[in-house]
């Protein structure tokens, strides 16, 4: 049993499983073809003509993030660390999503910008705009390649297809629907993928819990497997095992400030691949509700992703052995695949495979659809070919989508020979978000902040994060576990703020008249409100009520799993 771990992961897919998979991808392409009919301008292509209902954008908002990294990473964390992994959701996502919906979305949607970099252009001018636009475009297209490579690895592992074949087929499918239907096709497929992923995770959670003897059975088995480490795995606070910070107080501080504030606010509120979904909503009210509606399923998805990971670590013999220290080639990243193999019969197996492949493709489609928008609007239209008719930019957008997919294929092949480099790149791109959030928050609330401060702050903050990370990798600093990225992001945030304030005080700010709608104190309050009549009426559609509800649910879950 300890030999040939790779071969052990091969799933016994029957013809019926392939049929279920094929049905799904026929529908994916059908959505692309149908969505094409509604694309008649560049805004239709890049932002769905700002016409989508809030429940669609809300589910797409969390689904765009529900890709390879999340599904494998969070079940792996669940298997390795147990309940403290919940912080990635309840501390590391929900508060940031609430903040985006309540505070930041009125600026994004109200200023009618078409992308996050475009907001920087309006607020700080070209310097900060170029820094952010170029780094974002490069990051997205490279991460699309990483997603593509991850998909090909899984297809190879599960079904035995050669890597190059799955890379090309998957890229062709993503290219087909994103270049036809634009963001609408990507968003609709993300929503469909969301439901299939949930259909995969629910039986894993419930059947797994049934087999392991209920919650108490799971607790007993985790305790029996590791009497010393069980306590840390079975309570979410202070999470010393996940941060790698021994001191309980510092560990809580690392989780709350590093993960909860800097990393998660940076990711959820400034990453255009996410914010784009909210910008495509049909009204200010729907845009504000997008992250708030997404927050509810996000809260519960934590349970059906992390608990299966914990179950896999005690139920699957190979993984349990690996956790006890046996070198058998099985890693925590295999947790969900092993559980699928051990629990699901043919039929449900096909839907689980479909869900996994759909998640990887949707992840890549989110990268590609945000890349083509930023490249077309923020690089091509802003600096290279200005003032062309709109259908010119629509054509450019379609062409850039093709180029983006081709580059992603290239990246995927590079990734297949330099696996570690790609892991590292992904960590690196994560560092762009922390200083970006610092610049945004300062720029939105302090009208004195100057254009030069905007650009320099971003560069210095990113540089700081990279420096901390390199120092840690060279063992100058000694931070184990996930604590290193919390510290790197926090340092980047502080350096960005301090430098931005210093530079602002020494340089000349933009006149107030140019900052209306971009800075809190200069924006008339009624511009930040939204219409609450007609289809936006009803107490349950009020952003504050939705926000209060999800924060209360999160608080209760935090107490239950304390």
């Amino acid at each position: 049993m300890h030999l040939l771990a790779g071969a052990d992961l091969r799933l016994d897919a029957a013809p019926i499983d392939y049929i279920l998979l094929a049905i799904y991808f026929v529908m994916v392409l059908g959505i692309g073809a149908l969505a094409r009919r509604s694309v008649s301008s560049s805004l239709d292509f890049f932002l769905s003509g700002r016409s989508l209902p809030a429940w669609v954008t809300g589910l797409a908002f969390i689904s765009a993030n529900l890709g390879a990294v999340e599904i494998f990473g969070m079940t792996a964390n669940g298997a390795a660390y147990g309940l403290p992994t919940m912080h990635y959701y309840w501390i590391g996502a929900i508060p940031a999503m609430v903040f985006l919906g309540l505070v930041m979305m009125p600026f994004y949607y109200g200023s009618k910008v078409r992308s996050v970099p475009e907001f920087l252009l309006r607020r700080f001018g070209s310097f900060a705009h170029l820094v952010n636009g170029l780094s974002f475009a490069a990051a997205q297209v490279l991460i699309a390649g990483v997603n593509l490579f991850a998909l090909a690895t899984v297809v190879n592992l599960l079904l035995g297809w050669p890597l190059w074949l799955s890379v090309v087929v998957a890229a062709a499918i993503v290219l087909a629907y994103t270049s036809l239907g634009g963001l609408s096709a990507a968003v609709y497929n993300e929503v469909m993928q969301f439901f299939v992923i949930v259909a995969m995770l629910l039986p894993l959670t419930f059947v797994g819990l049934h087999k392991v003897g209920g919650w108490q059975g799971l607790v007993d088995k985790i305790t029996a497997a590791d009497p010393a480490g069980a306590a840390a795995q079975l309570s979410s606070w202070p999470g010393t095992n996940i941060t790698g910070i021994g001191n309980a107080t510092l560990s809580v501080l690392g989780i709350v400030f590093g993960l909860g504030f800097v990393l998660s606010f940076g990711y959820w509120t400034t990453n255009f691949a996410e914010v784009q979904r909210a910008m495509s909503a049909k009204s200010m009210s729907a845009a504000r509700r997008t992250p708030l509606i997404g927050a509810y399923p996000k809260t519960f998805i934590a349970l059906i992703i992390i608990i299966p990971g914990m179950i896999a670590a005690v139920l699957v013999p190979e993984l349990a052995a690996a956790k006890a220290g046996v070198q058998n080639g099985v890693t925590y990243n295999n947790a969900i695949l092993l559980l699928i193999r051990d629990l699901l019969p043919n039929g449900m197996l096909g839907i689980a495979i479909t869900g996994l492949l759909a998640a990887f493709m949707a992840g890549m489609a989110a990268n590609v659809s945000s890349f083509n928008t930023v490249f077309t609007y923020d690089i091509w239209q802003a600096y290279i070919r200005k003032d062309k008719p709109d259908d010119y930019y629509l054509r450019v957008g379609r062409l850039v989508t093709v180029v983006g997919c081709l580059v992603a294929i290239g990246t995927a092949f590079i990734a297949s020979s330099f696996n570690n480099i790609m892991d590292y790149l992904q960590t690196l791109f994560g560092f762009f978000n922390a200083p970006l959030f610092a610049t945004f928050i300062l720029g939105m609330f302090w009208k004195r902040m100057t254009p030069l401060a905007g650009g320099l702050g971003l560069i210095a903050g990113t540089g700081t994060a990279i420096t901390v990370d390199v120092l840690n990798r060279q063992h100058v600093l000694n931070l184990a576990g996930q604590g290193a990225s919390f510290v790197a992001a926090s340092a980047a945030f502080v350096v960005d703020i301090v430098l931005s304030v210093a530079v602002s005080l020494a340089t000349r700010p933009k006149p107030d008249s140019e900052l209306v709608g971009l800075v809190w104190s200069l924006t008339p309050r009624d511009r930040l409100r939204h219409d609450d009549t007609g289809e936006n009426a009803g107490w349950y559609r009020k952003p504050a009520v939705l926000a209060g509800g999800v924060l209360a649910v999160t608080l209760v879950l935090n107490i239950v799993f304390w």
Partner: protein
Amino acid sequence: MSEPTKRAGLFDLRGVLAVLFAVYGLVLTVMGIAATSQADLDKAGGINVNLWMGIGMLVVAVLFALWVRLRPLTVPERPESAEQ
């Protein structure tokens, strides 16, 4: 760039989801009833996973279909500028 776009073009996603889950639910339910071996049951600790998930998906399909029936897609009459 801010002129109102043609709204009627985009189809209703709820119908697509209803169809997907109706097909999936049907296939799984039939497999659960007709093609579940003892080995499948043992794998899942005695639970007929396909049957339960199949029924669940059929319920989801019906809910989406009902939602479409009760709240059909309307083409908004207000121009885009009615809201800030």
